[in-house]
């Protein structure tokens, strides 16, 4: 801060010097007039001229007004009888003093005012020019460091200093190096030494800037994250006027805008690449699954044939049966992969029609009963007909997957239930598939709908799942504009899966 004080003292000293010089000059000329016998009015005019010039060459109103008052006293002292005293013989001089002081005050304030306006206009123009230059250059930038370089260059030029810029990465952490302008043509890259300090200071930043050992740091703040800092050397920063600070802020604002734009473009490109990769992966999966399907049907049929040819007591019967079971499992896996890839591609257009809930639930249960007829499933649905817009085939798949899952985790003979409730308030139908299995562990709960997630807690004889069934449920229900959740039951052990389907047809799919 001492620099700032020194600067201020210097300005005051300079102002006072101007007052002394001009008023002395005016007094000297007045003295010449007196001895040559010029009329006294000329002397008054000389003082007024001096005040005007003082106002012109100093900053602010203070010096002009101060000079006006001094000039009255000087005139009184040097040029009214009795000379070299502050007394006046002729009372009519009082009028002269009053008129003179008013005129002097008015001229000084007017001049200062005009000058101030002129300076402001100049500053505004410079500001506009600088901003225009900055934005103009920023549009050419192709990456974040380009922008940093351009901003550093132009800010250095406008502020007449060696400004610097430190970019932040995507996680709002400072990079290891920053760029600094060392000459109008040259940018250098410097290592960040006090990384921790910077991080700390930026986090606690409330006002416009924070002070480092070498720089004043201004934060470049984007739409919703920190993008970097602009660094102005301390010796320059302390001399900055309010207008310059304003200009700097405006320039940082433009820089932030450019960085934001670039970031979002990069984000978009990244997303697009990810989507393309996702699609390739989906296509590959689909192609493989498709080609697997036909031979699987064949193997399934053949193993059935073998079972048919052998007696139940024959060990070959069991071998054939094992082949059949494995193929059956593989087959449903392949079908699930196919459904999923089609869903995620968005290729699977929803064929939404009002469907009777009882039919869909009944269809799913019937499907399950064909495969595992031993397991009893209780159904509780509203007495009156409930029509819900849905793609029946897909919702049936959701129910089948959920029931399959329930059967896998529930000992034979324990309760598995499907309940459907109409929620009038939320205008949706609520489907609940509940079981009496071992429930869902806390670590599985948040991940249970993720693709390829399989429970870590596995019982030894369980068929290995590859975590597709529930992921498909999630995708299908979401595509319908509904929600799916998994809970542990509050009334004893077991898990329940709840999904909702909106009752009203929406056109946004």
């Amino acid at each position, binding site marked *: 801060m001492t620099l700032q004080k020194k600067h201020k003292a210097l300005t005051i000293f300079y102002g006072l010097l101007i007052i002394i010089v001009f008023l002395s000059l005016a007094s000297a000329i007045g003295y010449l007039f007196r001895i040559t016998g010029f009329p006294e009015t000329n002397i008054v005019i000389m003082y007024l001229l001096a005040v005007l010039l003082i106002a012109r060459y100093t900053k602010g109103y203070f010096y002009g007004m101060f000079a006006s008052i001094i000039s009255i006293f000087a005139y009184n002292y040097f040029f009214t009888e009795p000379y070299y005293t502050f007394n006046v013989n002729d009372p009519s001089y009082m009028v002269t003093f009053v008129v003179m002081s008013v005129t002097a005050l008015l001229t000084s304030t007017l001049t200062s005012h005009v000058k101030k306006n002129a300076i402001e206009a100049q500053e505004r123009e410079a500001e506009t020019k600088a901003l225009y230059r900055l934005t103009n250059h920023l549009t050419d930038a192709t990456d974040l460091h380009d922008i940093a370089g351009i901003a550093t260059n132009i800010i250095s030029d406008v502020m007449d200093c060696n400004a610097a810029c430190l970019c932040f990465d995507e996680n709002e952490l400072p990079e290891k190096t920053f760029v600094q302008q060392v000459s109008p043509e040259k940018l250098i890259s410097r290592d960040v030494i006090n990384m921790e300090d910077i991080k700390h200071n930026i986090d606690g930043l409330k006002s416009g800037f924070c002070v480092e050992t070498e720089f004043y740091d201004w934060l470049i703040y984007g739409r919703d994250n920190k993008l970097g800092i602009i660094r102005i050397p301390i010796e320059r920063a302390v001399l900055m006027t309010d207008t310059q600070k304003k200009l700097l802020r405006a320039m940082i604002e433009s820089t932030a805008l450019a960085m934001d734009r670039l970031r979002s473009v990069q984000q978009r490109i990244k997303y697009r690449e990810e989507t393309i990769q996702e699609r390739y992966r989906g296509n590959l999966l689909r192609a493989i699954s498709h080609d697997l*399907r*036909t*031979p*699987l*049907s*064949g*193997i*399934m*049929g*053949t193993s*059935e*044939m073998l079972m*048919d040819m052998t007696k139940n007591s024959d060990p070959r019967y069991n071998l054939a049966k094992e082949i059949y079971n494995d193929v*059956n499992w593989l*087959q449903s896996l392949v*079908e699930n992969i*196919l459904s999923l890839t*089609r869903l995620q591609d968005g290729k699977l257009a929803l064929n939404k*029609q*009002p*469907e*009777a809930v*009882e*039919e*869909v*639930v*009944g*269809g799913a*249960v*019937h499907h399950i009963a064909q495969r595992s007829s031993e397991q009893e499933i209780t*159904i509780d*649905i509203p007495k009156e*007909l409930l*029509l819900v817009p849905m793609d*029946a*085939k897909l919702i*049936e798949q959701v129910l089948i997957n959920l029931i399959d899952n329930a059967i896998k985790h529930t000992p034979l003979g324990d309760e598995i239930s499907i309940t459907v409730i109409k929620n009038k308030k939320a205008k949706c139908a609520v489907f609940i598939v509940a079981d009496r299995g071992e429930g869902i562990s806390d670590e599985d709960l948040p991940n249970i709908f993720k693709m390829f997630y399989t429970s870590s807690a596995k019982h030894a004889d369980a068929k290995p799942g590859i975590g597709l069934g529930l992921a498909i449920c999630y995708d299908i229900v979401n595509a319908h504009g509904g929600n799916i959740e998994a809970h542990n039951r509050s009334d004893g052990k077991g898990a329940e899966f709840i999904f909702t389907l909106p009752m009203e047809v929406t056109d946004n799919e």
Partner: protein
Amino acid sequence: MSNFGERILVVEDDTQIRNFICYSLHAEGYQYIAEKTAQGALNSLVSEQIDLMLLDLGLPDLDGMDVIKKVREWSEMPIIVVSARDQDKEKVSALDIGADDYLTKPFSATELLARIRVALRHLYKQGGNKQQTSYQIGNLKIELDKHLVFLDNAELHMTPMEYNLLALLFKNAGKVLTTSYIIKEIWGVGYGNDTQALRTLMAGLRRKIEKDPAKPRYIMTEIGVGYRLMDE
């Protein structure tokens, strides 16, 4: 073996599935002719006496649909289409242009034989006793000449629409009827494809004949396709 050695034409390009089907048919006492291509199938249809055709929809040379259309130009023989699981649309249009039933891969021998039995029974009904006036399945009985329906020997009151629907299902017992076919038969051609009306009508009918509409004993829903009245 309760059949008369009917001749069944098997059109399937995958060797394993074809072998499996043929073996199952043979074990059940049916005669069969196996073809790999649609063209071969059409040739056999002309030169041989065929009672029923099993047709795979994904043939290498000709679209299965075209085969159905061609056959329907001169023959009413039962056609059962075999399709993959994601061929729902093809399945429904095959049923709409004249196929009698469908099987979705993978299917079991039991399923295959059951479908064949139903289709053949239909063939005989059509050929022989065309004027059958009363049908009974389980405890459900319908008398077409008197417009009466009985459940457990008690008469059921039905609206005319419900009666028409039930009668239609009975006449096609065991066979899957597509939604659009039922709508056309009940409401007429000009009605369009309003499935909601059919769902509502079906719900009403089920509440009268089924103990638990969500676990139907008589009318099964084939989701995405239509309805089937169970007859075994």
